[in-house]
């Protein structure tokens, strides 16, 4: 009896409802993936900071002593080859110094709270550029997504809350004209979301291929064995620094002795 009162959905309407359900599921999945990617990036940046502070600075010091040694040799030998070597060594020392003492070295450990993760996931879902309905909306969302990512990386929960509070009620509030247009728009959104999810997957795969990620994986493994890999590396380079320093001191004594 009651079914008579409910209007039967047209096939187009059924299709649209199914696609909207799928859209919601994909939005949720995308938010998870974005969270994963943002966390991975932030962890890597934090590890890079740690690596540069504990190991990078020693490489920079080692290169500095090697450059000094090459310069002393060039001074004493005076040959074009020695001068070229000294120039290369100096360039290398400056490059290592710029990395070891640059901005990347200041990144602090990344320990996101469950609250921060939840806020990020919510914000990513709501502002995601790939749920945009038109180009203007997309540009606005891309800008917001950058802010969300930056706030997450620095653990700024307040900023995430402000972004969320400033959002429109719902991204799907604006409806197109007619069911056909709605369906087309939803299909386009679905494609965008799938593309983005695939892109994130390949980006994550690419990130874990990076040398820094491999170093981090080794360091993490070492921790489970009760070892401090960065300390071991630092001890090794410190030994090489000491040898290089002694060589420079010896060479400069020779120079003054002459």
């Amino acid at each position, binding site marked *: 009896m009651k079914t008579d009162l409910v209007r039967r959905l047209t096939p187009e309407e059924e299709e649209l409802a199914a696609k909207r359900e799928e859209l919601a599921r994909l939005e949720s999945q995308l938010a998870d993936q974005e969270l994963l990617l943002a966390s991975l990036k932030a962890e890597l940046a934090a590890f890079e900071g740690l690596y*540069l502070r504990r*190991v990078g600075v020693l490489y920079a010091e080692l290169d500095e002593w090697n450059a000094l040694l090459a310069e002393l040799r060039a001074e004493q030998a005076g040959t074009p080859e020695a001068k070229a070597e000294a120039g290369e060594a100096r360039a290398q020392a400056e490059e290592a110094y710029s990395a070891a003492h640059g901005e990347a070295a200041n990144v602090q450990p990344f320990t996101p709270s469950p609250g921060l993760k939840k806020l990020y996931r919510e914000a990513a879902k709501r502002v995601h550029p790939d749920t945009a309905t038109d180009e203007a909306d997309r540009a606005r969302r891309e800008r917001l997504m950058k802010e969300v990512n930056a706030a997450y990386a620095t653990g700024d929960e307040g900023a995430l809350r402000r972004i969320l509070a400033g959002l429109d009620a719902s991204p799907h509030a604006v409806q197109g004209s007619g069911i056909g247009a709605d369906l087309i728009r939803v299909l386009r959104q679905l494609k965008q979301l799938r593309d983005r999810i695939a892109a994130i997957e390949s980006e994550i795969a690419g990130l874990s291929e990076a040398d820094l990620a491999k*170093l981090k994986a080794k360091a993490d493994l070492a921790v489970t064995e009760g070892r401090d890999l960065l300390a071991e590396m630092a001890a090794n*380079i410190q030994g090489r620094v000491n040898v290089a320093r002694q060589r420079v001191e010896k060479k400069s004594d020779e120079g003054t002795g002459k």
Partner: protein
Amino acid sequence: MRGSESQTALVVAQSTALVRKAAAKLAKRGLGDLWLLESAEEWFERAKTAKSQNQLIEFFECLQRTVALDPEHRDGLDLLGMAYHDGIGTLRDQVAAVEYFRRAAERGHAEAQYHLGLVYDYGHGVARDQAGGAAWERKAAEQGHTGAQYRLAGSYYWGNGVPKSRFQAAEWYRKAAEQGHAASQYELGKMYHHAEGIAKNLFEAAEWYRKAANLGYRDAQFSLSYTIEEGGAILDRLEAMAWLHKAAEGGYGVAQRCLGDRYFWGDGVPRDRTQGMAWYLKATEQRDCGAIYKLARMYAEGEGLEVSQDLAKAALWYRKAVDSGCDHDYGEATRWLEKHTETGEGA
């Protein structure tokens, strides 16, 4: 205005990109070095396994690979020094040994510092230099290396390479002794016993002797036995005898002779001259001069119940005293032999 602003922004972006690239290079470099370190460690493990299986050439070659991959591998450098020094898996090369010991020692490896100290002390592969040896032993000793502490204490005791100081000797013996180093415990006990560098304290002497004695150190077992009798511990003649037995059974010549005396005269044990003789003979096998003279005199004088004068046997023992280098101080054996050869007796 706008142009220069965007130009500045471009320069900043470019330099940021360069720094990012430099940081990525540092990561790559670290990963490469780490691979070398890990490979070196694998070869080092293989070297240790080879050594335990007595595959000495394999041991040596694995060590060479270890330090080729990681020139900072301190354990590897020290062991390679040992291999060259003792000729393990390679020809003996004391000069090369010194270089490897030095590389590890300069990198703060305590064992290598100790080894470098020893090669300086003995002049192995390097000009003999006791002061240089003591300096390296001190570095190892300050890191808590008991062998080096023992050596350094000895250097202070005799004034080898350092100003002679019995007090410093006692201090370094004490550091090693407190870490359970038996020889140092014994030496520290002796210094308390004979009031060298520190005030005489028989009780302390007995305590340190006892620690070393419990670790099986024979000299300490013997010293403990008579320190107990001298009153360094609650007088317990049974315990004193037990330690004397232990030292004698461990093959310590002096203890064997003293135990012989006890049996011979029935001092603390039932008098038993056969047992006494047996211990004297054991002591002579350890080239204990006291025991050798004792037997020589017994046969020469006919002293003692079960022994009648036997000049042929006396000559034999006096000859052994000369051959064992016992006669440098007394000349007793030489005189006796000369006298009896002239008269034709015992020849």
